[in-house]
């Protein structure tokens, strides 16, 4: 067994202090130790974006960070972002537009889209496509996702 490291961070608004293995990824820590299974793992090598989470207000790959690096940082997952209500317009638009099928990519795409819309409240379609290009969706072909992000932008403006 590895030597454990004690780390303190804020997760979804609550202070968390845990002993973690230095090789445990942040995504595994959130899923296994905190039961926050909305953060998904599609590749574990930083390409698919299914593990997207928010660290200190910016999106980040949960599979490329280590839990032990999070000392003093603030982490938000899909569960926290949902509870805060800040994704509500996107979630409604995704449901109405059927912009998800299996839903495995969806938490990562919602968090990515929310950050994008915060920076670009009136996006053109191509900009939405570019913004989502770090997130793989194997089910939808993206068209409905782009529609949903565009309609959420309208609903928010």
């Amino acid at each position: 067994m590895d030597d454990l490291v004690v780390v303190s961070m804020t997760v979804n608004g609550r202070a968390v202090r845990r002993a973690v293995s230095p090789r445990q990824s942040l995504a595994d820590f959130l899923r296994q130790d905190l039961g926050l299974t909305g953060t998904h793992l599609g590749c574990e090598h930083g390409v698919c974006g299914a593990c997207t989470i928010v660290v200190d207000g910016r999106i980040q790959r949960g599979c490329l960070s280590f839990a032990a690096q999070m000392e003093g940082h603030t982490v938000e997952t899909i569960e926290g972002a949902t509870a805060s209500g800040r994704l509500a317009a996107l979630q409604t638009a995704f449901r109405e537009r059927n912009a998800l099928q299996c839903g495995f990519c969806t938490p990562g795409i919602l968090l990515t889209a929310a950050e994008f819309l915060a920076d670009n409240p009136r996006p053109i379609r191509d900009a939405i496509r570019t913004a989502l290009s770090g997130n793989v969706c194997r089910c939808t072909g993206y068209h409905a996702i782009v529609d949903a992000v565009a309609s959420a932008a309208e609903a928010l403006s």
Partner: protein
Amino acid sequence: MTKNIGSARPRDDVRLLLDGRGTYLDDVPVTGALHVAFLRSPHAHADIAKIATAAAAALPGVVRVVTASDLAAICHGWGSSQTFPGLVERRQTALAATRAVYQGQPVAAVAAETRAIAEDGVEAIEVDWRPLPEMAALDHALEPGAAPAHGDLASNLAYSGTIGANIDPAIWKEAAHVLEESFIFHRVTGVPLETRGVVASYLPADGSLTVYQSHTAPHQLRSLYAMHLGLDEGRIHVVTPQVGGSFGVKIHLYPDEIATCAIARLIGRPVKFIADRLESFTADIHAREQRVRARVALGADGRFLAWQVDCLLGMGAFSTHPGSSVQEGDETVRLAATPYRVDAFAGRVDVAFQNKTIVGQYRGVGHPMASAVTEYMVDRSAEALGVLPEELRRRNYVPDDAYPTTSASGLPLDALSHRKCLDEILRLMDMPALRLAQAAFRAKGVYRGIGLSAFIERTATNVPVNAHVRKATAQDGVTLHIDPSGSVRAAITVTEQGQGTHTAIAQVIADALGVPFERVTVISGDSAATPYGSGIRASRGAPVGGELALKAGRALRRNVLAAAATLLQVAPDDLTLDNGTILRRGGGRGVRLDELAEAVHFRPQLFQHGAQPNLSVAMHFGHDWPTLVPTNGIQASYLEVDARTGMVRLLHHWAVDDFGTLINPLLAAEQVRGGIAQGIGQALYEELLYSEDGQLTNATLADYLLPKASDLPDITVGHVETPWPHSELGAKGAGEAGTTGALGAVLTAVNDALRPLGAKITEMPMTPERILRALGKI
């Protein structure tokens, strides 16, 4: 009357997925599970002289190291589950014993307290490998002297079959034009974003096995595990939780999955295996590796006098289980040219063993290549005759009113609509305007292409050959029950992987029974909750599951009306049920379904003058229609090829499909769009790259290129509805058409763009490098 069938209703059940509260396989809570990791062969072909496991077993946290000999008594391995007579097969075991025949084949397993420790254990196993000559490259597989993929094979030819009839040689001589082309399709794989996984637990005390698995057919798994592990099927319970995509990858049963269940049985503790992405690339089924030759004899009047289509399929080291790898090649040939009137058709399928991963059933199975080859040849024919591609298509289609008919390749076909679909897509595209724009760009040295690709897609398997060996039933099953609150629960065997199966089934039941959609809850994916049935494969959710739901909903309606008639002391025929309320036809007091259900469950004294009320129905349905249910459609691609870089920019894509009666146009359209993305992937980006010695060199998502949001265009989807005449509902399968049409649409569009440059390309994916080669630039 409220109508749910045909309404573009969004899925309500996605709310929990949007909130990150779905339960996928890795989210299923299991207490005390050990984690299993596999040692896989790093070689395409090698003898295993010795496996040393002591160091791994000694690691703290490792509970058990397992090799083939540990499993031999529990799980004997498997040979044929094939449906093609004459296919040569080789026996497989869950873990390779003395020889590995493809890279990624599981050889040993470690069960440990954490996945990280299990992986450490795998690294500590030492195998004395003795590499053997390998057969990887398909082009050389059947040459004399080629290294055999299995030591005892005299030849790598696993199967050879002919389709259609012999073509009179005189036809080739007398034809106005004879066109010939060869096509290369490279290997791809399905890449569901959630990888495969199994959680298995075996209780020695009562001989029960409980399996959670990311899969589409829980009952079939039960039967297969009973067969493989020698267990009582009645004691096996299989649950398929939320599934993060399948596309065919998760209809198969893999050696690592069988091994995981066998290990659960061996050590009597719950075990969990989740494939990582690297393992998925090397061990999930692969698909599409084909060489196809096509030859067309064309009359001066544009008539198709003869088509010859020959396919060589690389199937990997074994035929897939359960099912057969041959299907991918067989469907390519059998479906070729089927939209058209063809005087004579001959085809041949050869299937070769390789020291590569097994080829299985990926979305569309053979059909994308059938369409791509056919439509490329139709375009060449139009060019030879000097007519527009759409014009030659229209002329030569089997007319919409000529069905039922049998294709020249021998397939029974019915209720298809090629002409209507062509008219609709040309309208959506505004083809004349598009051609003008294309010409204007060409004048400026910008090479834009327009491509069409029509196809027939076969859906909804009925009784498969050798079903007993594959444990593949043609029936689906459902139970319907009305709770005391009046809510309706449907437990059905067609499963959900995001298509919207549950929503579509609820829509059908709501209409058949006469209740609001919101009152219907659909459950699937649990062998203990539903009757025995097929599960999802071959786009059967709507045609088979929907028809079953319709019949069962109507049967339940009869039960409801009988109970209400007893309660109200009238004849059942005098009652109707609509929107959850039972009314007398002539007027007068009725009863709400929830009131009736409450009375049936809690106030039986009200029913003393009649038969026992029964608010449940159990039903099975396996169709006896003449064939698989054919659907048809057409797609179009508009794109630009950069002649300097070889890059393709997709500008727009269109699809028009005939899925018969549409249960839900919103869900059907998104099935089409998602499928198109996968077809475009095969056309332009996706390829499993192997080195000469059979090593997969791009087994990461960074190196295997999936289409991203910025790669893909907007996709316009239209529908033509020709109901399937052999069912009451009239629905056909919608799951695979998108993938099937897209490959050919992009192929014909790229070639249309290249035509003024005097170049052509028939190797897919059409990468920038291949396009530059086609242009003679490199």
